[in-house]
C-alpha cells in the first residue's frame, strides 16, 4: 500500500499565513523603521512626545520580556526586577560620567558594564533566592530589591537618596531598538533551546523535571541571571536617557508596573510581553489625552481606569492577552509545522 501525503493545493490565505518572514528580515525591518523614526524626530518632522513614548515602550519591553523568563517560563514569582535595573542604571551612570567623553564607545562600554554588573548581582542573589520557592521566593526577591535600593541610598559616591545627576544623554530610539532586537533574539533562541525546555519543565513539574536529570538549581539560576542581565541593560539605557536617576525610582512601585504589564500581556509568551507593554503604555497615553480633551479635570480619571482595565482583563481572560501562546511568526518554523497551536 502506498503511503503518501495527499498534497492539497493551498489556498492563497493559507499560503500567506504560512509564508512568514524570517526572524532576521523582521529584525532588520524593525531596526530600519526605528532608524527612520529617529531621523524624522531629529529633523523635527516627528513630535518628540511620540519619540519619548516609543523609547519608554522599548525599554519596558526589554524589562518585561526578561522578567517573563523568570515569572513566565520558569514559573517563579520574582518581585525584585527593578533592583537589577537599578544596578544597571547606576553602573552605566558611573561609567558614562567618570570614564570617557560622551559618544558611542562610552555608550557601548556603559551598556556592557551595566549588563555584566546586573548579571553578577543577579547570580549572587539567585544563589540565595533559589533555596526557597513560592511565596517565600517572592518575598526574598522583593527584599533584595529593597536592599539594593537602600544600599544605593547610603552610598554618597552615587549621590545617596538625592540621586545621580548629570549623566550624558546617549540613548535614542535607534539604540533602544537595537537593544530590543538583541534582547528578543537572545531570549527567543533561549526559550526554544534545550534551556527553555528545562525551564518550562521545571514550571510544569519541578519534581518530575529533577527526576529527568535536570539540575534544577543551575537551570533556575541561569534564567534568573539572564533576566537580571537584561534588566541591567534596560537600566543602563534608562540612565543615559533620563540623565538623572534616583534610588526611589527603582523600588517596588517600578516592579509592580512591570508585573502589571507582564501579566496583562500574558506570561510564558514573548509576543505577549510586547503586547502588554504597548497596550498598557498606549492606553495610558490615549486616556490622558482623550480625558483632558473632554475636560482637563478628568485627566486624573485614567489612574482609576487603568487598574480597572487590569482587573477586568484578569477576570475575563485569566492568562492575560497572550498567555502561553505566540504570534505565528514568533516561533521558529519547525514548530509551526508540527504543532498548530504554537505552544
Amino acid at each position, binding site marked *: 500500500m502506498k503511503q503518501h501525503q495527499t498534497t492539497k493545493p493551498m489556498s492563497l490565505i493559507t499560503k500567506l499565513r504560512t509564508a512568514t518572514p524570517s526572524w532576521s528580515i523582521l529584525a532588520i525591518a524593525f531596526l530600519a523603521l526605528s532608524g527612520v523614526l529617529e531621523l524624522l524626530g531629529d529633523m523635527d518632522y516627528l513630535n518628540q512626545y511620540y519619540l519619548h513614548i516609543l523609547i519608554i515602550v522599548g525599554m519596558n519591553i526589554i524589562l518585561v520580556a526578561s522578567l517573563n523568563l523568570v515569572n513566565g517560563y520558569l514559573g517563579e514569582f520574582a518581585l525584585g526586577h527593578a533592583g537589577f535595573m537599578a544596578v544597571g542604571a547606576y553602573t552605566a551612570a558611573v561609567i558614562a560620567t567618570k570614564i570617557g567623553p560622551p559618544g558611542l564607545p562610552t555608550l557601548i562600554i556603559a551598556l556592557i558594564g551595566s549588563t555584566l554588573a546586573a548579571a553578577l548581582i543577579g547570580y549572587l542573589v539567585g544563589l540565595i533566592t533559589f533555596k526557597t520557592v513560592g511565596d517565600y521566593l517572592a518575598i526574598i526577591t522583593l527584599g533584595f530589591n*529593597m536592599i539594593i535600593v537602600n544600599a544605593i541610598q*547610603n552610598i554618597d559616591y552615587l549621590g545617596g537618596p538625592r540621586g545621580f545627576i548629570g549623566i550624558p544623554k546617549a540613548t535614542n530610539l535607534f539604540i533602544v531598538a537595537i537593544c530590543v532586537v538583541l534582547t528578543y533574539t537572545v531570549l527567543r533562541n533561549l526559550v526554544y533551546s534545550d534551556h527553555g525546555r528545562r525551564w518550562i519543565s521545571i514550571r510544569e513539574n519541578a519534581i518530575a523535571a529533577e527526576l529527568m536529570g535536570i539540575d534544577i538549581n543551575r537551570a533556575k539560576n541561569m534564567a534568573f541571571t539572564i533576566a537580571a542581565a537584561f534588566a541591567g541593560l534596560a537600566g543602563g539605557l534608562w540612565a543615559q536617557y533620563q540623565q538623572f536617576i534616583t534610588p526611589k525610582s527603582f523600588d517596588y512601585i517600578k516592579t509592580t508596573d512591570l508585573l502589571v504589564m507582564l501579566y496583562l500581556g500574558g506570561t510564558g509568551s514573548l509576543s505577549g510581553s510586547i503586547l502588554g507593554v504597548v497596550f498598557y503604555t498606549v492606553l495610558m497615553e490615549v486616556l490622558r489625552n482623550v480625558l483632558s480633551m473632554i475636560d482637563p479635570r478628568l485627566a486624573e480619571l485614567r489612574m482609576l481606569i487603568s487598574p480597572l482595565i*487590569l482587573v477586568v482583563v484578569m477576570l475575563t481572560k485569566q492568562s492575560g492577552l497572550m498567555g502561553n501562546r505566540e504570534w505565528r511568526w514568533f516561533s521558529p518554523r519547525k514548530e509551526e509545522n508540527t504543532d498548530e497551536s504554537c505552544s
Partner: protein
Amino acid sequence: MEIIIQQLLNAAQLGAVYALIALGYTMVYGILRMINFAHGDIFMVGAFIGFLLATTVNMPLVLMMPLTMLLTAFVGIAIERVAYRKLRDANRMSLVITALGVGIFLENFVRMVVGPQTRQIPAQLPDKILTFGSGLVVTEDKLLIILISLALMTILWLFTNKTLMGTAMRAVADNADVIPLMGINLNRVIAVTFAIGSALAAAGGIFYGQAYSIDPYMGIDLGWKAFIAAVIGGIGSIEGAVLGSFMLAGVEVFTVAYLSSNLKNGIAFGLLILLLLIWPSGIMGKPMIKKV
C-alpha cells in the same frame, strides 16, 4: 535604661499597627493561599474613613472606631465578592495581579476623593504624659494604642479558637476542598475572613493616623512591611503574625535609634532574608510538605 524601655514602647506601638495589618494578610493567606496585595490599601481606606468621620461630622472616637471598622469590613467583603471570587480556582498569579490592580484602584480613588496631601486624624485619645519612676515618660495614647490592639488580637484569638465560625475558618485553612462537603458555606467563611481582616486593618489605620500621619499611598509601604512581618512569623499563623510584627517593629525602631534611619529598610529586609533561610516557612509556620 529608661531610654531602652521608651524605645521598646515605641516599638510596641508600631508593632501593634503592623500586627493589625499582618493579621488580615495571614488570615486570607491561610484560607485562600493568596497574597492579598490590596490589603495594605484596605488599611489606608480604613484610615481615611476614620479621618473623614472624625473631621466632617466630628464623631468621637468611641463611635468612630467601630463604625470605621464596620464600613471597612464591607469594603473588604465587596472586593472579595467582585474581584476575587471568580478567580478562586484560577491560576494563583492572576489572583495576585488582580489584587495589585484593586490596590492601585483604591489608592487612586482615595487620592481623587481627598487629595494627595498628608493628613493626621485629629487626636482623640487622651495624651496626658505619665511619668514612672525616675524619668520614664510615656504618653497615655501610646499605652492605649498598645492595649486596645492587644485586646483586639485577644478577641480574634478567642474567635478563631472558641467559636463555631472560627472553627470553620481553621477547617477551611486546613483543607478547603473537603469543607463544603461538610455542609459549611465556604463563601460565608471567606466573606467573614475578609470582613475581620479589613476591620482589624481599619483599627490599625486609625491608630496609625493618630500616632503618625496618613496619605493615599501609605498602604503600599506599610502593607509590604506587615506582609513581611506575617511571613517572618510564618504566614497562615495568627500567633506568628503578631510575633513577627513586634519583631520587625523592634528591629526598625532600634536601628533608627542606634544606627541610622537610612539603614532602616535595608536591615529589616536583610533580617527577613536571614530568618527565612534559617526557618524557610517562618517561625511559627507549618512547613510545607509536598507529596510526589
